[in-house]
């Protein structure tokens, strides 16, 4: 019994998204563990845990900042490895934005399945459990031989829509065929109409012609997707929706990666708002883009950590967003 009592949550934050870690820690009523991470002069990453993690339940929060994906990933692996070496009882990697999630299949000859590589690397480093949010493809869970909790931003989105719009006026639109399931799920929960845009994609990050399937006339069109990267797709889709008579267009996206010229693209678009969660560090993008709104996902992650630690069910979080 006393051994059980000694086992506590140790929340360790990487350098990529300290803001999210702080929010999670605050929510859990604990402090983020003291750590030192830095780069040597040859840019090798070094990490040390500043307090004992022996026999503790360690949660390592690391997102991956745009442009620094490999840096963040390497730091995460080193953090896991350091905690493993320091005799942590269990190490849970909390990766709100799973890196390389889009390279999840051998779509061309000799294409690397980098997502599986990342999964193997995390386990090799010593992760016993993975918590992530809105995986690009749920099949990525199968790349792991350790449990993966894939949390959803959907309950938070549902609440946002209910609080800000009249559900009957809305049409939920998926910007591509792959996201149809995600969009229909939200439409079902809100009991609203659903539409789909079919796009042709000649190359990655380049968007071709788009065709709308469904009716959006005089409605608030809500685009739903799992990630907004260069925003080319979203902006083109928004234009197509406007052409088809939508009253206004906004987008709900879990991971606001917003790389390249995304901010300029957004500012010049017909989108009235882009709503993202804070799974990805946004930096100064909120100031630079007045259309960007942020939903705080930390309550969901904090609750998942608490429940994982206490051995409670996490499934409640798939349908409810903690207040």
């Amino acid at each position, binding site marked *: 019994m006393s051994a059980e009592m000694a086992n506590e949550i140790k929340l360790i934050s990487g350098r990529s998204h300290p803001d999210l870690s702080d929010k999670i820690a605050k929510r859990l009523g604990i402090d983020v563990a003291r750590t030192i991470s830095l780069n040597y002069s040859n*840019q090798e990453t070094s990490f040390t845990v500043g307090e004992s993690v022996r026999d503790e339940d360690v949660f390592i929060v690391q997102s991956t900042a745009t442009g620094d994906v490999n840096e963040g990933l390497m730091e995460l692996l080193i953090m896991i*490895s350091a905690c493993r070496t320091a005799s942590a009882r269990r190490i849970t990697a909390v990766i709100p934005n799973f890196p390389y999630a889009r390279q999840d299949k051998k779509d061309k000859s*000799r*294409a690397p399945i980098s997502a599986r590589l990342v999964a193997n690397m995390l386990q*090799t480093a010593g992760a016993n459990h993975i918590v992530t949010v809105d995986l690009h493809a749920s099949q990525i869970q199968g790349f792991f031989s350790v449990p993966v909790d894939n949390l959803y931003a959907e309950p938070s989105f549902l609440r946002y829509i209910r609080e800000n719009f009249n559900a009957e006026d809305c049409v939920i639109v998926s910007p591509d065929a792959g996201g149809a399931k995600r969009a229909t799920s939200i439409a079902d929960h809100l009991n609203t109409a659903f539409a789909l845009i079919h796009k042709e994609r000649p190359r990655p990050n380049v968007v071709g012609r788009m065709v709308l399937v469904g009716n959006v006339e005089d409605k608030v069109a809500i685009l739903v997707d799992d990630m907004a*990267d260069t925003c080319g797709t979203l902006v083109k889709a928004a234009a197509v929706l406007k052409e088809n008579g939508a009253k206004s267009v906004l987008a709900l996206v879990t991971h606001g990666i917003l790389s390249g010229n995304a901010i300029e693209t957004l500012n010049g678009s017909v989108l009235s708002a882009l709503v993202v969660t804070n799974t990805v560090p946004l930096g100064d993008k909120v100031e630079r883009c007045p259309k960007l709104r942020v939903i705080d996902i930390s309550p969901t992650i904090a609750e998942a950590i608490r429940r994982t630690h206490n051995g409670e069910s996490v499934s409640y979080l798939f349908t409810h967003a903690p207040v």
Partner: protein
Amino acid sequence: MRSTLIFSGTSCPGLTKKICENLGMAPADAELTQFSNGETSVRILTSVREKDVFVVQSGSPKINDTIMELLIMISACKGGSASKITAVLPYFPYSRQSKKKSHRGAITARMLANLLGVAGVKHVVTVDLHASQMQGFFRCPVDNLHAEPLIARWIRHNVPDWKEAVVVSKNAGGTKRVTSLADALKLNFGMVTTDKKRGPNMTASMIMNHLDGIERQPVLDPISNQVRNNTSELENGTPASTNGHSQDSRPTADAQEPPRQINGARSRATSNPRHSRSQTTLSQSSVIDEMDEEAEEGPEYNDQRAHEVTHGRLVQGHIVPDDFPSPATSVAGESIHEEDPMTMSHASSFFAPQSHALGGSGDAAESSDEEDEILKPKVEHMITLVGDVKGRSVFIVDDMIDKPGSWIAAAETVVKRGLAKKVYCIATHGVFGGDCLEQMQACDCIDTIVVTNSYPIPEDKARSASKLVVLDLSFLLAEAIRRNHYGESMSPLFQHVLDQ
């Protein structure tokens, strides 16, 4: 070579091209880019099915990107049904993080070895691992090649008086790496060591104990002896060192160093037993367990072989004259510290916040052979040169050059204190972090910097450094690849070729 493909990572296209030229083939086609969000994208543009694949990747300033690229390339080749994948890593990244050096630090090198295994590597070829024990981190075979024959050959061909030269290690941890070069060239061997914890009054006996059994030629030079006796007397006279006895009387917790005052007293009162003791072990090697107090005793008590020990004061990373004001009391020293980029980088050193952040002991600093100097700014250090370098060329040798501080300090010590003629800084891996190369170029005491092309050096940087000599490793690596492919023995690559 039939059914062999050599892929190059983005870090070292030049080296790979040279390797391929040696083997009479062209590097295999691969498209290496980054997605706009920073994720690495790899496209293997040629069939690898049932091929013997080699992936060459070195380090780069974006080291983590480089590693990910390597892992993804290996993974892609594995997914493309390559029969065998060999990672050729002339510079093994994270090789300095090969042990748990502080509380709860990561053994990143081991993790990287595991990651390579997970990605699908069946064999690793590398050059001069920081610690050869790292071969044990891998489940697959590792060929740790040595650049030493190459370096020895360069020395024999390019240093006119190499037979009179001395090979010097710039820290105690690297001594083992250095002695083998000295053995290969049959040269004398010396060592420079910086004491990180104690002030300028520390004795040399602790260091000397490590050197028992290392073969040295006892070169006696009465004049230089005289000079050194004088300098040590001068040192004793400086205000910075006169209060030394109170410091020394504290317990030093160093088992190898007997309490100094006892030893010192014995050397004054009963020097004969001590003398006979050292003579019993004086077969070929010279046992030196003496301190600078001996200078006061007069020449008749001197075991002269013990006198190839020279001390210097290291302030802000530079050797200073004996009358230089101690930085602890001088304001000038502080302002120098603010301007000196090297000591600035020390201020942000990994270990600096450790004592309070971790409540830890000094054990992190003790493993300092791993990292370059971890000198606290504003603190004066004692630097000790062991061995006679007067009027000779000196090869300061280590496995990599990353930070300039310890190299410059060692070079200044052997020139200003040891009166060396010329200084060659020799390392396998020229990592040159920050403005290291510029600083070493600017240092008057360094004459030549010799590295291999295991770590890519930007061309404009290399061109502006007139002292820099880059040796080509491509033949060694090409030969290793060829021998690996045909299943031949690697051992000839480790042998020195006497081609003079």
